[in-house]
């Protein structure tokens, strides 16, 4: 297939200034403090593919998501979606057309719906913003269609969000995301706030919709089981960097980065195969003062002197990309 990838993220970085106010810095002689939330992240997502980002809390997954959808300006790097650069050198009209084709599903279904708006108005908001339907009747018809599509009743449009359960709310969020007929959906931990029994329903709904509308997903999660169910390719993030990108099957059967290995070893083994389950050791370091060299070296069982001084670059390796000095040395 010669079609270019839908999403092309290159060298994406974001630094937050978390210093104290100017006067405090002057009086207390403090330095400026910068938090490098995301550093040099590059990946592509093919059309109709699900690409997942996994990692612990604070690894920068959500920051990447916000930059990809255009909510947060990157410090460096580019996000190109369908040939349009999201942040630099694109005409305003192109950006506006692009916004219609990107939507997001948020983590907290209780905070992502305006509590004072009726569901119908919430779902119709993108339709109105992009002028996709004219007149009250047409908008109402479209809203009803969307509600039915996500398994709710068209009459639910008259209710307020607090009348729904978490899973139903997430369905409403999905309906809102689909209302502008997007191509690309960014899902930021869409099921982590839901009951386990409801998670599967929502995930299956998302897969069905992907097949039906040819959607492309960027799926963010810390739940490896969920990611395995959804994604074709997976990127593992650690402290703002992508340490490994691999096809889902390959990653789960033979992780090539020691951090990926550690995450997989920590997954509870439901098949009772007797595989010993290892606890995750240590905690994610303070991102304001990251360790020198490979950020993972304080927790890495294979760390060498090289790891403590040099940042490993991502290298293509057996159909995947791995950022580790020891990758391929047969020790993982």
């Amino acid at each position: 297939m010669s079609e270019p990838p839908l999403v092309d993220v290159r060298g994406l970085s974001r630094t937050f200034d978390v210093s104290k106010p100017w006067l405090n810095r002057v009086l207390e002689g403090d330095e400026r403090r910068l938090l490098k939330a995301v550093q040099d992240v590059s990946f592509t997502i093919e059309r109709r593919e699900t690409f997942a980002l996994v990692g612990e809390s604070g690894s920068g997954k959500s920051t990447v998501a916000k930059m990809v959808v255009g909510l947060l300006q990157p410090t460096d790097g580019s996000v190109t979606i369908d040939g349009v650069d999201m942040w630099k050198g694109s005409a305003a009209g192109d950006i506006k057309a692009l916004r219609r084709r990107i939507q997001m599903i948020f983590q907290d279904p209780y905070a992502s719906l305006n509590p004072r708006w009726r569901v119908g108005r919430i779902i119709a908001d993108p339709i109105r913003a992009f002028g996709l339907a004219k007149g009250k009747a047409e908008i109402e018809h479209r809203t009803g269609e969307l509600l039915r599509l996500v398994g709710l009743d068209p009459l639910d449009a008259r209710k307020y969000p607090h009348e729904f359960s978490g899973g139903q709310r997430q369905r409403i969020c999905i309906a809102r995301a689909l209302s502008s007929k997007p191509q690309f959906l960014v899902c930021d931990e869409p099921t982590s706030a839901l009951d386990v029994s409801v998670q599967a329903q929502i995930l299956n709904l998302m897969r069905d919709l992907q097949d039906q509308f040819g959607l492309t997903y960027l799926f963010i999660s810390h739940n490896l089981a969920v990611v395995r169910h959804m994604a074709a390719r997976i990127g593992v993030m650690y402290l703002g960097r992508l340490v490994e990108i691999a096809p889902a099957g390959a990653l789960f059967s033979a992780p090539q980065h020691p951090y990926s290995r550690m995450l997989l070893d920590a997954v509870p083994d439901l098949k009772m195969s007797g595989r010993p389950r290892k606890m995750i050791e240590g905690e994610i370091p303070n991102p304001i003062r990251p360790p020198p060299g490979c950020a993972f070296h304080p927790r890495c069982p294979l760390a060498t002197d090289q790891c403590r001084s040099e940042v490993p670059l991502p290298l293509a390796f057996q159909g995947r990309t791995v950022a580790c000095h020891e990758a391929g040395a047969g020790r993982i």
Partner: protein
Amino acid sequence: MEIDAGDEDGSAAADDTGFLARVRDNDLLHSFLRNRLVVVAAAVTLTFVLLSVLAPWIAPHDPYDVRTLSLLDSHTPPAWEQGGDPRFLLGTDDQGRDILSTILFGARISIAIGILSVLLAMGIGVSLGLIAGYFGGPADTVIMRIADVQLTFPAILTALLIDGVARVMLGAHQSAGGEFWILVVAIGLSYWVQYARTVRGVTLVERNKEYVQAARLIGLGPFKIMFAQVLPNVMSPVLVIATINLALAVLTEATLSFLGVGLPPTEPSLGTLIRIGNNFLMSGEYWIVIFPGIALAALVLAVNLVGDWLRDALNPKLR
């Protein structure tokens, strides 16, 4: 408000979320009916509003119509006292105006100034609070520092200052209704701070919620998000402040008028009446000051009680 526009058609009552069902299940209504004091206070407030709106039709005399006044009627005591005149139930003032009628007309002016100045303060305060909270940064700093500075002055002093400046500026071409609007602006400008601070606080929380991000995602501008998305979520504390503020505004107007910088004696508000009556208190003509005073106290107390109840009822932590 615009929030429900378009969704409120006749068939809404068909399902469980219909208007009648919502009224029936409303916690606020239950809490209201359970609280006798508040019901009485609300009734008093409503009576005052009705009486003042209907004043031109129900008042026995028109205190503004100089032709009907007679100095011979001046200083008449209330009807039940010796020398009282049944035409003037609560007596007359120094110009022969019926006290009952002037109270009705005075309450009308007091309430009008109160409501208009509260609306002005609310408009300014809510807008600035939304801007400060939503944009943050320099806009926030500038607005909130101005608010802090204004907060260090008592509201009555601010109102006096604005009133004085306005009078000097408009002095040359002051029209008949000039004082009325000067008072509205002076009182409105002295009470915006409380709204701004409250709204800013709530906005700081709301702007980080995901529904605001969802609105930014589809390219809506900041003002559209502030007023359509965030505003409905900050309205309940604003309503509480507005109610309590109404009592304060009426009181401030009365104070300004009592001090002589408010409405002129020809167009008396409750405060002006009390000031006029004050001059005759020592000569035993108590009715000129007492009855407008009772009216003012009752009005302010009633509005305050409703406001206090609303604050408690809308605060989920106190339920």
